[in-house]
Structure formats: structure tokens, C-alpha cells
């Protein structure tokens, strides 16, 4: 007993600040260097890739005809023509996909968040997870086997859009779901307390509150599908000239143009490849910036 009391007299931890032992300090330093290095390492391919694309693609996209002409009648070795036919295809195919996928995706998300308790909601949640893991080539094969091989339609830009719908849906649903869940329940309850029916509450209160997030999510989904190459390889033929008709005929898109020019080893072909790659990155970049602007602008207006 006395011994215990004696021990209480002494300070339990004598020096308040012990310097960390060299071993631990070295380990800490090594870890710091490693994780910082990992981050820097990841920047290498990003900057390398962007630099390459900008450097090699810049001469092409600054040429006079790039944004206003197609490749109709342009010989493989000729430095001429442009990508406006492919630009049209990329944008239109993605927009049609968005027109189909966005209403459906938002309705599914509403079902999951506002009504979803039953078995259907559980199955849907599971399948959205499945769909988000479906490789784009499998989505393309599916549209091929239903739309072209079973229903007998021709290859067309519309078929591509259908495959893109499958790829957009999980992104739109997941994002909308998340945004709807962020809407505080107090808003819903206040609306119910005023006697507003549930559907009107959703349409007039919940959706507008979540709108900026939903729109920017849609734009990000759009950006994602614009660069998809697998569906266009399987579902539509390449065309060197413009085709405005999405229901029939071949239609170019930027990824398809890159893929078909890959077989052209001449300098002109190389220039077109990198030019188209840079154009694609610019288009996607514009959509990204738009998403950020929408997010900031609408979010500020709301608060």
C-alpha cells in the first residue's frame, strides 16, 4: 500500500515532451514521401497525356476548315477537311440519349427516394448497381441483339443513342437520388402541412431544390458518354461526310473518326487523329465547365 502511495508522489510521466524516437520519425517521413509521391505519380500520365494531345492536335484544330468542313472527298494524304460531321454525330447521339435517359432516370430516382420502400425499389437499386457495372461493349451488344438483330432495324445513330441510354441511366439515377436525399425533410413536411399533395410537393418543392445538382449530374453523364467508342464501333458505320439523319445511314462521331483514321499511317492521318482527340477533349471540357457553372449559379440563386 505504502509503495503505491509512494508511486503516486512521483510524476506518472516524467518528461512532458518526449522527442519521437528516430525510427518512428524516419517511418513517418518515408510515409509522407510515399503518399505525396503517389499523388505526384498520378499527375504524370494526366499532364503527359494532355500535353501530348494539345501539342499534336493544335495544328489541326487551328486549320481553317477544321470546324466547318467534313472529310468528304479528302484524300488520306491531304491536309484538308475537318471534323464537323463527327462533331455533329458526337453531340447529337449524346443529346438523344440524354432526352431518353434523363426523364426515365429522374423518375426512377424519385421512385427510389420518395416512394421506395417496396420490393420493386430494392430490385431497382440492385439493378442500377448492376447496370453501372455493365461494360459499354456489352451494352452495345445488347442493343445490337435486340434492335438490329431481332427487330430488324438498320445500324443507325439512334441505335448508338439507345446504347448510350443504358450507360447514362445509372449515372443519372445515382446522382439524382443523392441530390433528392439532400433535400431536407422539413421542406417536404412544410409542404404537406399546407395540404399540398405528395406529387405536387415533389414537382414543385423537392425537384426545384435539387435542380442544380441534378442538372450538373446530367451534364457529367453526358460528358461521360460522349467519349464512348465501343457503341459506335458496333452500332453505326463510319461516314466521311455529314449525315443529319439519326434514323438511317452511317454517321461519324469523334471517337469513330479517330478509330478509322488509325489505319491511315500518313502524316495527314496522324494530324487528324490528334486533332479529333483534342476536339473531343475540348467538347468534354466544355460540358464539364458548364456543369460547374450550373452548379454554382443555380445553387447560389437558391440560397
Amino acid at each position, binding site marked *: 500500500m505504502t509503495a503505491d502511495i509512494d508511486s503516486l508522489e512521483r510524476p506518472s510521466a516524467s518528461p512532458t515532451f518526449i522527442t519521437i524516437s528516430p525510427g518512428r520519425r524516419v517511418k513517418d517521413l518515408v510515409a509522407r514521401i510515399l503518399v505525396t509521391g503517389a499523388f505526384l505519380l498520378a499527375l504524370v500520365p494526366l499532364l503527359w497525356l494532355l500535353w501530348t494531345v494539345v501539342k499534336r492536335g493544335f495544328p489541326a484544330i487551328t486549320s481553317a476548315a477544321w470546324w466547318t468542313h467534313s472529310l468528304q472527298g479528302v484524300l488520306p494524304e491531304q491536309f484538308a477537311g475537318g471534323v464537323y460531321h463527327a462533331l455533329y454525330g458526337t453531340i447529337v447521339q449524346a443529346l438523344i440519349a440524354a432526352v431518353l435517359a434523363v426523364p426515365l432516370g429522374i423518375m426512377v430516382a424519385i421512385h427510389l427516394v420518395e416512394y421506395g420502400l417496396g420490393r420493386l425499389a430494392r430490385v431497382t437499386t440492385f439493378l442500377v448497381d448492376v447496370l453501372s*457495372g455493365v*461494360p459499354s461493349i456489352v451494352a452495345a451488344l445488347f442493343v445490337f441483339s435486340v434492335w438490329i438483330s*431481332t427487330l430488324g432495324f438498320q445500324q443507325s445513330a439512334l441505335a448508338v443513342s439507345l446504347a448510350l441510354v443504358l450507360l447514362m441511366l445509372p449515372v443519372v439515377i445515382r446522382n439524382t437520388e443523392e441530390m433528392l436525399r439532400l433535400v431536407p425533410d422539413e421542406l417536404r413536411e412544410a409542404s404537406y402541412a399546407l395540404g399540398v399533395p405528395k406529387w405536387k410537393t415533389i414537382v414543385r418543392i423537392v425537384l426545384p431544390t435539387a435542380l442544380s445538382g441534378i442538372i450538373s449530374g446530367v451534364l457529367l453523364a453526358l460528358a461521360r458518354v460522349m467519349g464512348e467508342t465501343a457503341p459506335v464501333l458496333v452500332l453505326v458505320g463510319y461516314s466521311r461526310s455529314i449525315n443529319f439523319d439519326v434514323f438511317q445511314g452511317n454517321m461519324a462521331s469523334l471517337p469513330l473518326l479517330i478509330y478509322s483514321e488509325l489505319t491511315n499511317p500518313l502524316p495527314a492521318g496522324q494530324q487528324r487523329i490528334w486533332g479529333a482527340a483534342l476536339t473531343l477533349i475540348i467538347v468534354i471540357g466544355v460540358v464539364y465547365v458548364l456543369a460547374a457553372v450550373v452548379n454554382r449559379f443555380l445553387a447560389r440563386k437558391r440560397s
Partner: protein
Amino acid sequence: MDSPSGHSNDPVPAAERGRGGVGLVDEPAPNPDDQGKNTARRRSARRRGDVVFARLSAAAGLTLVVAIGLIGLFLLIKAIPSLAADHANFFTSTQFDTNDPKNLRFGIRDLLVVTVLSSAFALLLAVPVAIGIAIYLTRYAPRRLSRLFGGLIDLLAAVPSIVFGLWGILVLAPAITPVAVWLNRYLGWFPLFATGNVSLTGGGTIFTAGVVLAVMILPIITAVTREVYRQTPVAHIEAAQALGATQWEVVRMTVLPFGRSGTVAAAMLGLGRALGETVAVLIILRSSAKPSHFSLFDGGYTFASKIASAAAEFSAALPTGAYIAAGFVLFVLTFLVNAVARAIANRGVAR
């Protein structure tokens, strides 16, 4: 009265109805005589609106369910006749010859080997880096810059896969070929680095494809692990700090154990992406006449790139079915990997 049934089933007592409903402000005050009637009508209309809207949203969900069910079903329907007409063993044959519809000989053995090898190699490269980045972003990076730095990594996910493919074969491959040659020369006794079935020059090997795939799946793995690490309970971290832990010890004792299941789930998600990646691999890998023998310096096709490479010739039903069969296997493979990822993630949440 639009629907008499709606009226008779009205559970709201008449007294309450008489209060003039819940009068939305912009509506004119109803005539006291038909006030009750009006409100009832409005209420039944309101209920109809609710029913319609609920049905609509359920229908959207159902559409999705049916669509995904059809994916599996249709791929199977289109694949079965070709599988029946297959003259080679579907699982063990290294051939993929669909030129003669009367004598289809196709098997997925090589596709499977190349797909799994390239994806596994990519995962091996990407996961440690992704964990490092996630730790850096959550624990080391200056707080103000953390979001910006995270955005930079996410930017990698915005680059289209065909651009990755271009860069991979035209820029990266020549740069890393010396590494491949060195590995092959000095570690060639190890099966993974043995001389493969394509030439090393030009770099159209699984090695190059794996490096590019690693870059491509890095952002998704980083994003998921980052989110998990960020949720480490502050109490855990502060407890470790109170015990005098260094920054690294905090990470090792709190963040990593807390995020273990999340990290594994993220890796599986990345694996799912890598398995299904199409165009980048198609551009990079060089085709080879000889079967693969588990070397990183082999060429060949993955499931996805094989299908994409033959897409232009999808006309006759039977040969197309062979590719659809391959697509179905890929579908099942990615489904399984994603299911495992989800199961691990959910178990982590439950714990």
C-alpha cells in the same frame, strides 16, 4: 363528380371537409354552398394525381428492371444457337474462328487469360498508388488544396478511353518498351516476364495495356477509397493523436483499419472497369496467331476488344452469336466482380 367511387371512399369526415380544404392561396374562395363538394373533388383529384405520379415513377423503375432482365436474356438467346454449333470447346479452345458459319470453332480460353492477366496487372499497379493518393488527399494535403487535388485526379476519369488508347500505343509504349525489354532479359525465367507471342518492339503487349488500364482505373479506386477514408471517425484519429502517434501512425492505426473493406470494394470496382475496357485495349494490344501462355509480353484480345474488333462483320447470325456468347461471359464476369465489391462494401457498413 368525376369519380363517384372516389367520393364514397373518402375517409375524411364531412366536418373536416367543410373547413374549405387546405385552400391553396391562389385559389378563389369557394362558394359556401358547394364548398364541401368542391373540396371533395379537389381531394379526389389530388389523390388521383398522387396515384398517377406514383404509378409513373414505379413504371420507370419497372422499365429499368425489365430492360436489364432483357440484356441477359437476349444475349443468351442470341448466343445459344452459336454455342450449339460450336465445333470447339467453348471454355478451353484457344481458337476463335468464325469465318465459316458451317464450321464455327471458337473458345474463350485465350480471351479469358488476356482479360484477367491485363486487368490483374492493372489492379496491382493501381491499387497501391490509389491508396497512397487517398491517404495523401485525406490526411496530408493542405486542406484548402485537397479538393482541387482531388479534382485533378478525377480529371483522369474524364479522358475518353480512345484517347488513352492513342496515347498508350503512340506515346507511352515507346517510352516503356526499354523497361519491358529489361524485365524480359533479366527476369525472363519468371513466367510472367517470359518472351511472349508478340514482338516487344512497338509495345503492343499486355504489359503496355496493363499500365494504361491502371491509369484509367486509378480515379475510380481513388474516389471510393478517398470517401471511405474521409469517414474515419474523428474520435479514433484524435485518440491516436492523444497517444502521441505520428501522422503515419494515425493513418496506420485508424484510417487504414477503418477503411479496409472500402479499399477492397474500391479495388473490385476498378477491376470491373478494367475487365470491360474496350477501345484502349483494342488499339494497344497486337493480335497474335499463337495462344497465350500467361506472359505479360503476350498480345492477343480481351473479351471486349475481340468483340469490338469484329464489330464491322456482324451480319450472319451464327458468327455474331459467337461474339455475343463472349459478351455474355464478360457480362457475367463483371457482374460477379461488382457483386463481390458490393457485398464487401455492405459488410463494411454493417460492421
